[in-house]
């Protein structure tokens, strides 16, 4: 490994990132080293139950998400049937539901007084709802629905990169269809599968919305942490936070080790395998029907959300379907300044945090890829760290670090100010922006920048006329994902928001508590549409 060069800008950025990302975690670790709190954590059975619940819920989420996502990916990559392209895109649509929005959509759809329960109740003429959507089962249902998309998208991408000539080579060597799948295809897509498993595990481990809304008495670590904090037991919350962080880092290290080389896939440069046409009319009709049924099932939460958003307050009581539909909720949402404010607040905070994360990511990518500074490993590690730690961990860490004023320790009171939420979103978005921009920068041929220089363009002119335009797809992808994540954030917001800077997710929650389901759903629809639009724009580049 080559030694890098030491530069002032390289060291400055490393220190800035360390202050934003690593320092708050260290502060929490320091505060967690508290004898009484550690003893309380170790001796209370509820703590161990929550930790264990977090682990097994996450493992089960990975299994369920893989069971749904991987076969779907094979179906859409390997076969050609009517409607494949449209359906293939629809199947990824759970991704446009921010966590809390997905949860309330499930509540309206499958909850105790949701459409499905009401339908069953009226068909069977029951006096009670046939079930309660609560506990581990409910959490897993939401997780499987929202997280299979990771397996689906990553496996499809992996399959699309498999070189057809490798499969042909295996066939020429006498391997049958299953043998090819087991001995060639699966090993080749293994990096994608491991990546999806890691992503799903981390998301499930940090998942807060579903356990918060559906958990009831069933606690996972993130809800346990928030509960301790709300009960005023801050020291215990620190210990719990460190316990959760440790599990996340342990799993990350474990899975990283088994992650295969992407080199395997990069070896081949041939075309992707051809999709097999389904020939018999029966098979085509069957595939079409199954596909559209699936699409409807997957889109039911979106449709439910839209429908509920059209129900005015207190007009829907015992009927199976709402009797009155109107756009009054949207009129209130956009007409009343107190309702419009969270929307605008969320927009500007998401925008500011995305811009900040992109600027830091660009500086980091330039220093790491072009300047090859001595601290480039540290920069990359710090950029990626927030991804490995659940949102609750960062929320608690930032709340702790920036809740006191000790300028000499580089700590200022930001909690309770407008700055804290954008800062938290920015930290959480660093991995997304960093990965996109670094990947984009690495693919950029350095000769292009040299060509610009040899044609008389200075450093900034080269950056503006060559580097930025060529990075645009990477920037657009990173920015759209970061913006949508910040826009729909719930878990950091619930810890750090103030009434004046409350984001959409908090407004959805308070509407739910006031039983203003229509308003909550309308906010959800706005978030969903905004997310879909931004992601669509980002992908088009």
């Amino acid at each position, binding site marked *: 490994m*080559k*030694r890098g060069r030491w530069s002032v800008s390289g060291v400055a950025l490393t220190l800035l990132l360390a202050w934003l990302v690593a320092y708050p975690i260290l502060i929490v670790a320091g505060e967690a080293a508290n004898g009484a709190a550690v003893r309380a954590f170790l001796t209370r059975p509820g703590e161990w139950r929550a930790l264990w619940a977090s682990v097994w819920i996450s493992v089960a989420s990975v299994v369920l998400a893989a069971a749904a996502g991987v076969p779907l990916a094979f179906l859409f990559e390997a076969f050609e049937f009517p409607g494949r392209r449209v359906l293939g895109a629809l199947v990824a649509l759970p991704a446009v539901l921010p966590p809390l929005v997905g949860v309330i959509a499930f509540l309206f759809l499958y909850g105790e007084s949701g459409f499905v329960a009401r339908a069953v109740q009226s068909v069977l003429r029951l006096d009670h709802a046939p079930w309660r959507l609560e506990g581990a089962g409910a959490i897993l249902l939401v997780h499987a629905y929202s997280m299979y998309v990771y397996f689906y998208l990553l496996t499809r991408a992996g399959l699309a990169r498999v070189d057809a000539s490798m499969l042909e080579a295996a066939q020429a060597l006498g391997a049958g269809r299953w043998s090819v799948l087991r001995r060639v295809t699966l090993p080749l897509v293994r990096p994608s599968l491991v990546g999806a498993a890691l992503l799903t595990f981390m998301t499930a481990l940090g998942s807060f919305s579903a356990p918060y809304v559906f958990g009831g008495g069933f606690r996972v670590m993130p809800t346990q942490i928030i509960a301790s904090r709300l009960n005023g037991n801050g020291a215990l919350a620190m210990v719990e936070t460190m316990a959760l962080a440790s599990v996340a880092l342990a799993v990350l290290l474990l899975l990283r080790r088994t992650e295969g080389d992407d080199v395997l896939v990069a070896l081949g440069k041939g075309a992707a395998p051809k999709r097999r046409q389904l020939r018999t009319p029966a098979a085509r009709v069957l595939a079409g029907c199954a596909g559209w049924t699936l699409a409807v099932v997957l889109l039911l939460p979106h449709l439910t959300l839209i429908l509920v958003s059209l129900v005015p307050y207190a007009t829907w009581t015992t009927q199976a379907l709402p009797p009155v539909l109107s756009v009054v909720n949207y009129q209130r949402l956009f007409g009343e300044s107190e309702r419009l404010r969270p929307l605008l607040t969320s927009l500007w905070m998401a925008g500011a945090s995305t811009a900040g994360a992109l600027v830091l990511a660009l500086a980091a990518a330039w220093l790491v890829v072009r300047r090859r500074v001595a601290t480039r490993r540290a920069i990359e590690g710090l950029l990626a760290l927030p991804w490995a730690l659940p949102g609750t961990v960062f929320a608690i860490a930032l709340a702790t670090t920036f809740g006191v004023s000790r300028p000499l320790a580089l700590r200022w009171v930001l909690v309770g100010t407008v700055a804290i939420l954008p800062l938290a979103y920015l930290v959480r978005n660093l991995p997304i922006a960093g990965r996109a921009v670094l990947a984009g920068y690495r693919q950029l*041929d350095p*000769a*292009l920048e*040299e*060509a*610009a*220089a*040899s*044609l*008389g*363009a*200075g450093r900034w*002119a080269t950056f503006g*006329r*060559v580097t930025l*335009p*060529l990075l*645009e797809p990477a920037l657009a992808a990173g920015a759209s994902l970061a913006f949508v994540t910040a826009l729909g954030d719930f878990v950091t917001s619930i810890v750090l928001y103030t009434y004046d800077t409350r984001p959409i997710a908090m407004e959805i929650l308070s509407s739910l508590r006031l039983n203003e389901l229509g308003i909550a759903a309308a906010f959800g629809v706005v978030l969903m549409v905004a997310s879909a639009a931004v992601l669509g724009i980002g992908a088009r580049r």
Partner: protein
Amino acid sequence: MSGFVQVERLSKRFETKVAVNDVSLAMARGETVALLGPSGSGKTTMLRLLAGFETPDAGRIVVEGEDVAPAPPARRRFGMVFQHYALFPHLDVGENVAFGLRGRGKGDEGRVQRARKVAEVLELVDLSGFERRKVQDLSGGQQQRVALARALAPEPRVLLLDEPLSNLDPALRERTRRELRQLITRLGITTLFVTHEQEEAFDLGDRIAVLHDGSLEQIGTAEELYEQPATLFVAAFVGRANVLRSAAALAFGGREGTVAVVRPEWLRFAGSGVPGIVRERRYTGAAAFFTVEGEQGERFEVLATPGAATLGQRVCVEAARVITFADDRATR
């Protein structure tokens, strides 16, 4: 002698490896010089030092009496054609060529001027009317010509070419080489280019600088390099050569402690001379290369008429000319 471009004692090391070691060379205005050498010889580093993409550890690069070594690439006014062309994929052909023409007047007048210049250089490389084409849609040869046009548009003082023909298929390479030679001659631009192909260097270069392990071995015309190689490396690297040591060298008239270099066409079958057996015969049309194994097991190539000998035949070989060098292996 003071040239238009004067490279003086240029050195550059990377980590532990010396890439360019104390190289000096001078180029006259309008001259074309080829940097020839095997991979890792430092020829690309030389070019990048001249272009300004690397900073030298020592030495000066003087152009028209001015040391440009401290100047960034943007201010050297050197045009460069990259090995893989480095055409900007987000710009079309015209925008690529116009890239270096910023600052030539603002507004409409500037735009008209730039467009005229773009059309002019595109015509030069025989791509008139290609302004609005996407660079991705061009063939390899066309991309090469756009890269050349882009480098020429700002009217650089020196043109630098990094393996300009290596990305073209063989059939196209010869034609492009001819066009490139005509263009450089017509413009009279001072040109330095890197190549590892001797034929290319011979054809395009007025003079050729042979680099080996970062050092300049010899600079001269093709004939000088071939007929009077200054070092054993040049003798062996340029053209085909039999490099003979010890007894074999003595047999062809070398002295003790020397290496004898004999080109295949300097050898002929004769009634007397060094005895050996014909082991291989490679027919090339007008002539054939015969590999002869001598009595100590040494092998050498003889160029002769196709019918001069047959496989397995015992022959005697005579040398019309031998060049000898001190044997650096023996002295080490």
